[in-house]
């Protein structure tokens, strides 16, 4: 096989959350002056979001070491399963992996949270993206492909407008628990989380949209580059067929950033309703 031929996989090591759970230990190391730390294993998968089943592949070729992983969000230890081949994922899974070896400090933990698709959409409409970041696919936000932090991979749509409106029609009136929207955080590229998100449900009797959840987000100077799934809980007793999401990109980038005063970019790649 040619290198990488035909593989839609995108490697996400390091671009996903790297949990530096051993920070304290590593700080001690600096004083202690011994032993190298292992690098994390390479993790490849086609998408964080999936329909049916998906799989995750790991690579780490260093003699005397092994990759250990967990599927429940806990930190892998020497007693966790050893990676021997592709791991099949069938349900929402908090996948964690790290490299371990006797002669070395354990690697940082690589974390990928796999998310199974929500209920089917009848239709989704959204504000036209900026022409530079318009993938031109009507189902782009509900195609179970997402969660890879490369803004040019064709999965993302991008905005630098005042607001973004997304209308979702479900197949039928359904009890809504929550909506999950995946947005990109890449402040080095002027891409910020939205400063506000509003979720509305259409009352089919009054034909009026009612606000069912509002989320406000404050810019974090130390935010790492990663896709961020934002949870929008619907609260109790919400039955709806039509949902509306309104997102407000950061109107003025904060003073600590090179782009201070400008409108930030907002990138979205996937929406699921549960």
């Amino acid at each position, binding site marked *: *096989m*040619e*290198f*990488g031929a035909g593989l839609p996989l995108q*490697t996400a*090591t*390091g*671009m996903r959350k*790297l949990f530096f759970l051993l920070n304290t*230990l590593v700080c*001690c*190391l600096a004083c*202690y*002056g*011994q*032993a*190298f*730390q*292992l*690098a*994390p294993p*390479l993790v490849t998968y086609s998408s964080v979001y999936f329909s049916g089943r998906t799989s995750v592949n790991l*690579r*780490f*070729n*260093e003699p005397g*070491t092994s990759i250990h992983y967990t599927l429940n969000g806990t930190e892998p*230890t*020497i*007693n966790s399963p050893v990676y021997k081949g592709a791991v099949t994922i069938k349900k929402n899974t908090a996948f964690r992996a790290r*490299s371990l070896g*006797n*002669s*070395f*400090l*354990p690697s940082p933990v690589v974390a990928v949270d796999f998310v199974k698709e929500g209920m089917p959409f009848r239709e989704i409409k959204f504000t036209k993206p900026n022409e530079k970041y318009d993938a031109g696919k009507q189902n782009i936000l509900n195609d179970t492909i997402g969660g890879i932090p490369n803004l040019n991979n064709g999965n993302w749509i991008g905005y630098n407008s005042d607001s973004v409106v997304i209308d979702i029609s479900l197949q039928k009136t359904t009890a809504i628990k929550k909506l999950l929207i995946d947005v990109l955080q890449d402040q080095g590229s002027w891409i910020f989380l939205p400063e506000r998100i509003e979720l509305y449900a259409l009352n089919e009797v009054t034909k009026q949209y009612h606000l069912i959840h509002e989320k406000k987000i404050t810019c974090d100077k130390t935010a790492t580059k990663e896709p961020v799934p934002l949870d929008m809980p619907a609260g109790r007793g919400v039955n709806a067929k039509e949902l509306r999401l309104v997102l407000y990109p950061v109107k003025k980038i904060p003073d600590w950033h090179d782009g201070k005063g400008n409108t930030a970019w907002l990138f979205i790649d996937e929406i699921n309703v549960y």
Partner: protein
Amino acid sequence: MAAGLLYVPGILQGQQTGDIILGHNNKRYRINTKWSQANAAQYPVKDCHEMVQDKLGRILLLTNDTNNNVLIYDKSGKVISSWGKEYPGAHGLTLFNENGDDFLFICDNSRHQVIKTTITGKVLLTLDYPKETGAYADAGEYVPTETAIAPNGDIYVADGYGKDFIIQYDYKGNYIRHWGGKGTEARHLNNAHGICIDNRDKNNPCLIVTSRQQNAFKRFTLNGVYMNTIPLPGAWVCRPVIKNDYLYAAVLQTNLRQWEQSGFVLVLDKHYKVVSSIGGNLPDYTGNVPEEMYQTIKVFQYPHDVCIDDEENMYVAQWNSGRVYPYKLQPV
């Protein structure tokens, strides 16, 4: 056997760094991270960009700290002398022995110039932006990163942070030709960060040029005709350094873990095949293409250059790595 034992934090079980053997095949090393005896108050560094060894066996380090742009070490790591306060963008350091005397070529990113000096820092020649090419509107577009000097004295400059042209001059600094530049064809370059003369095959010397954003080296004739590409998937290779039969190169970081201190050092044989990776994986090959490369041991942060001395010891200079002084690695 480790299995079944209680998990013991690595700090209690890890070996001393000097006990670890790094690398593969016949290019394996023990590392000494405390090689430099420089006192940071007396000899401060910012980025440690490049290193060379002179004919006296001394190791010269180029840093962009204008307190002392050039630190001159003996092989034991003691600073013997220093010079240079006028190179704020000191980046590329090449040594050329001309009729028995050592001369240095410094690429300065901030000054947009290449400067030839004696080994003690006396300026002999300054090359400004190459107007003769017709490709540059002003000096600001020209950000040279590296030079290579041919046996006949011709000077090749890689404009690695500018327009990615290679500009060839004669030994006096007269423009001869230029090639490369940005583009989509094989002969084009993207971040031509380094360049060297490969004269391991005495009958067919060539130039090896870094195309760092493309994770590759590209070979050209000494007249600038494109020959072929040496793909190094995933690796942000810096300049190629030839010593005897081998090519050495620092890898600043990998594609997969950008800006996460994911660097390592590669050793390639004379067929341009990776035979050792210091702090990284030894890739399998499909044809002449290695599999994607990645860091395995966090030995380095952002390695920027390697120097191999007359005893085959390796010195590694690092960019943006907490003002760390170079490490020395001894072959085992």
